[in-house]
């Protein structure tokens, strides 16, 4: 019950004999707290249990949908999307296909990135092309010509250099870039 009992813990070499140090003396919790999304400064305290994916990092492979509530004001919006006095709906290909053309560019980008592998991703792709946007296969971003400047086609006609407007899905904004565009890279 005295101090000598602590020696197996403190001595590094003969750890295996008695105790698993990660459970007795424990570990530096910084990475564990980081994996939980807990910031070290106490006042930055965000609740983590409401979006807790799983007790283990290895099984926390994706975010989980937290508790949320859709306020009335989000669903009861009359007179938009040709809905008249009813609530707007957007859930069937036949009726709602035409509504796609009513959406702003950003809404189309949102639907395209938020619903991968779905019908709505296909529909927004077609609509954005109609608006002269093109999807870059390797950069995985949408771009369109900068209307203020005519690009210069390279000899051989496989590419052009010019000024383009890109939509950046990380920063969620359009930005202008000078760029060499290879025609086989877009769709």
């Amino acid at each position, binding site marked *: *019950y005295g101090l000598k*009992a*602590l020696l197996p813990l403190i001595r590094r070499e003969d750890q295996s004999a008695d*105790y698993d140090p990660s459970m007795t003396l*424990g570990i*530096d919790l910084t990475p564990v*707290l980081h994996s939980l999304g807990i910031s070290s400064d106490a006042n930055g305290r965000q*609740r983590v*249990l*409401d979006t807790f994916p799983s007790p283990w990092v290895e099984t926390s492979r994706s975010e989980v949908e937290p508790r949320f509530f859709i306020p009335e004001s989000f669903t009861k919006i009359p007179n938009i999307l040709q809905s008249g006095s009813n609530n707007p709906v957007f859930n069937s290909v036949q009726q709602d296909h035409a509504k796609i053309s009513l959406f702003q560019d950003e809404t189309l980008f949102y639907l395209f990135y938020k619903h991968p592998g779905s019908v709505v991703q296909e529909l927004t792709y077609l609509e954005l092309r109609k608006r002269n946007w093109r999807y870059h296969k390797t950069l995985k971003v949408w771009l369109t010509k900068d209307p203020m400047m005519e690009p210069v086609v390279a000899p051989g006609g496989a590419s052009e250099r010019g000024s383009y407007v890109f939509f950046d899905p990380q920063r969620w904004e359009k930005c202008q870039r000078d760029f060499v565009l290879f025609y086989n890279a877009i769709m």
Partner: protein
Amino acid sequence: TSQEKMFLVFTEWVKLLQRVPDDDIKVTVFIRQMMDKGVVNSTENVIQFTKAAIELSVGSFKESDPTSEVFIAADAFSKLIVKLLVLQTFTDVSRSEYLRLMLSVITMVFSEDQGMVGNSFNERPYFRLISSLLCQWEEASAHSFMKIQDQQYRNELVEFSPDFYNIIASFLHAFQPIAYPGFSFAWITLLSHRMFLPKMLRLPGKAGWSKLVLLFTDLLKFMAQYTKRSDVPDAVSVVYKGALRVFLAVANDAPGFLVENHYELLNNLPPVYMQLRNVILSAIPKNMVLPNPYDAELRIGDVESCQHVPNVYYDPVRDLKNLKKPVDNYLRIPSASLSRVVSTSLFKPGSQKDTGIGYDNVSVDTKLINAIVLHVGIEAALEKDKTTATAIFNTKSSYYTLLASMLHDGNTEVRFHVVQAIANQLRYPNAHTHWFNYVLNNFFLSEDWGNNTAEIQEIIVRTLLERVVTNKPHCWGIVVTFTELLRSSECSIMTLPFVKTVPEIEHIIKHL
């Protein structure tokens, strides 16, 4: 057969939910028809239907292609349970009894499946059923059942909601890892589920805390049972890692739960888990700012929050059993005979295996010792509020002499566990931390121990040191107390024989 009819009804339900949104009128009509046609109108039928639904849900999981939607039936079943709870009027049975009945049937099917020969049991469909049930209930109950038009009905459901969570908790208690090891990882994931744990922590009036402590105790008991010194099975160390993250998340979101339930949690925490112990004991009330414990000018008595008595959710007096009278009588009028009654009642019949740091067996009733020590601390803090500080910050006070007599009359093992119990109270600045800091300092410097002085001092140093050499977090009260001892002018720790004879320890203390 009637069972096949039940299968058919449930299959139709699953198909319907895939074709229409769940707030579609057809869904309500389906439930209505189930009620009108007597599918769930008697206990017998509810049992039959539930059995059919859970068997189909688990069966379809086992038969489905793993890459497909293997949980459709389980999700549909959880939706059905919620719809039956919300849409039916309950007259001859209560909503709670109805839910308990369905969960009991599920438990029976689960037990048979789990007990099946060999290990074909798979926890995932049962996990998903409870997980989806929690999600669907959350959706139905959002904003006090906003979707229910009838006000009286809404009130009924709002009132039932805490019961819903406590009933789920009681079934989780039945499914605990010691009872169903094949469900252990699903169980821990359900305990920490985002639609369960935060709810239980925040139910009005702490209505979920008792069951939550019970579940955390189940987890700690399971870990304690199978944590030996060296060959901890891999799966148990994975359980430990999960438990550590859950406790850290609770300490972050709801520190008050750990602050008020430290006594019960520590009664079941294996002593080898020293960092987990530090995590639980280092929890501090939200928005409390701690004074720097290393500050040489710090006087614990001057810290304002040391005047406040911390709330202890479960009163340790309930664990004193037949010692309550002798202890309380002693605190009122101390007598040698009473203190002898206390000191001789601390032993357990026979010794019990319990892996600690430096010992494998325990022959004292550590839970009783924890209860006596904390009870005395609670009474002392109350006495201070009633009378004056000198009434308890006084080595002649009955509060102090009772603990001293436990050390004096006890053997080495008793002394060790009493000092550990005191150290467990050295937490954030509060009235208990303040008084136990006083007690431990005076124990360390006291001359009343005769030739047990060195032993008692060594036990005190070891108890404090083991909590300081453990990885952070460190308890504020431990650091303050240990710093005071290290700085004590009356007794330099460095000169004590038991420190000098162990070079590594001497080196660490010198460094500190």
